[in-house]
């Protein structure tokens, strides 16, 4: 699921979604506003996939949450 497989394309993989979400996260945003943004632009991302992608990005230390706002992790 993370990586593209035979049955799952890159864009449908969590990694693919990860790039989309990262791109959308240009400035800090709440979960809800980010979800609204993504959901509006990419209908195929379900809420479940959205959450799991966020989890992935988090465990990869790409994003962090600070006072309710998600943002890209700064070095």
């Amino acid at each position, binding site marked *: 699921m993370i990586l593209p497989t035979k049955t799952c394309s890159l864009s449908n993989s969590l990694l693919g979604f990860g790039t989309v979400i990262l791109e959308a996260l240009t400035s800090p945003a709440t*979960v809800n506003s980010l979800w609204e943004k993504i959901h509006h632009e990419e209908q195929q991302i379900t809420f479940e996939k959205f959450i799991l992608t966020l989890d992935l990005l988090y465990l990869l230390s790409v994003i962090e949450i600070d006072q309710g706002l998600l943002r890209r992790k700064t070095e």
Partner: protein
Amino acid sequence: MIKSVRCSSPTFKPIIFKKGFNVVLADRISASTDKDSRNGLGKTTLLTIIHFCLGAGTNPNTGLRIEQLKDWTFFLDLTLGEKDFTISRNTTDFGRVFVEGDFSGWPISPERDETGGKFFLKISDWNLVLGKLMFDLPVAINKKYIPTFRSLISYFIRYGHAFEEPFKHYPQQKVWDIQVNNAYLLGLNWEYASDFQLLKDQKATIDNLETASKEGILPLYLGSQGELEAEKIRFEEQIKKAEVQLSTFRVHPQYVDLQEKAASITDEIHETTNKLIINQKILKKYQENLVEENDVSVQQVKKIYSDAGLIFPNNLLTSLDNTLEFHKTIVSNRKTYLTSELDRLTRRIEHDKQEIERLSDERAKLFQILKTHGALEEYTLLQKRVLDLKQQIDTIKGRIEIIKKIDQGKSTLKIKREELLQTSRQDLEEREAQKKDAIRLFNQNSEYLYANPGILSIDVKDTGYKFAVEIQRSRSQGIGNMKIFCYDLMLIQNLTHAECSPDFLIHDSMIFDGVDERQVAKAMELAYQESENSDFQYICALNSDIIPFGDFSDGFKAKFDQSVRVTFTDATDDGGLLGIRF
């Protein structure tokens, strides 16, 4: 009877007339055929002088008032009512006549002139006196169209343009004038002729009224009485309706404001409704979201984590616990968000619903007021309309009145005319004797001339008296003049039996113009015979060249010669009446 004609000028040829037949002769030697009295020998001038002394009107610089006759005084000696008088009138002081004689008993007494002490009368008074003395015409008659002395006497002294037809003494004589004067002379009821003219006047007045009343009127008001009555009813109904509207009209002073308020409320309601709908849609979506976004199981997160561990080096990964912590946070964030949004929206929706209800109520109340009231402007307009309608009705009523008056006037006139016709016909029948006398005398006269009785017809027609003469010898020349001759003769013959009469008949030479010589001879003999027998004076002025000596009966030539009172000639400059040539 005229006894003599004299003049203050020594050049004038005084003429002495006698009873019966008199001739004034004009002997023309030169070839001139000019009938202008100025170049003539004086025949017409003589008649003009007689008229002048008998009160004729004058105009400056014509007739006897020309420069050459300035300050001439003409004298007329005549017998009036068996008394002798001398009348004099001056061409410069032409406004009056001087009278010498016994004028006691005259209806108007002459005044005494301060210088000279002679007695005089104003011309208008003189005419009234003459009317009484010669024709028994009352001095004061209270009627518009009456016989006058000047008109009546003109039938007994014919000259100039008096030879068109027997009943006229000048060509433009008006119909009423002809009727009234001839009726008087024939002993018929002249007042009816006067009344016919009055009716004509009234008809003309009504006709003028009708024409004038139509001027400047809008076509709307030109209909017949019936049409106008219908219009009037129509307007009256409109007024009734409008008045009912007025009486039930309730003015609301802020009507216009209320209207605007109601409109703006409607806008508000629409806006709020739109918001409501949008919010309801969003609510629905969030509700769906809430259902859809059920909890992502922790197991899945763990799987992700372990999968990630396979791909990525472990030291890069955050700890599993932290990740799970993160996961919980973001999930609960979302949930919190959705629920609070749902809450908010639900409340908002409730609020909007109530707001809409409130606005609708408010608007309904306004509509209620608007429905039962009206704006002041509307009321004012309505009032104006009622006034307008009332004015129109007044105009129509006025017009109807005029039409009625005119119609009524016309019917009254018709009735009056019918009545007058009947009355005058009746009267004419009752005066059968007078009529017969006139007709008989006329017949006798024309029979003497033409061996054929002429026809004098006297009738009453729609327009009044109708007089006509006919002598059936139309091939004979100059018969028109002889008709006049017979008529005039009949008039004087008729009058000599009456109480008052001018006692003379004077004809200018034109009476014999174009007449057959035989008739001229007979006419003269008839005039001679009748004037001698019936005791009136006949004077005719003749041109010597038309005397039909050859047609005279035996012994008449001598009588004729004895009747010549004066002969004018153009052989010498002083051969004319006035004795001067100009």
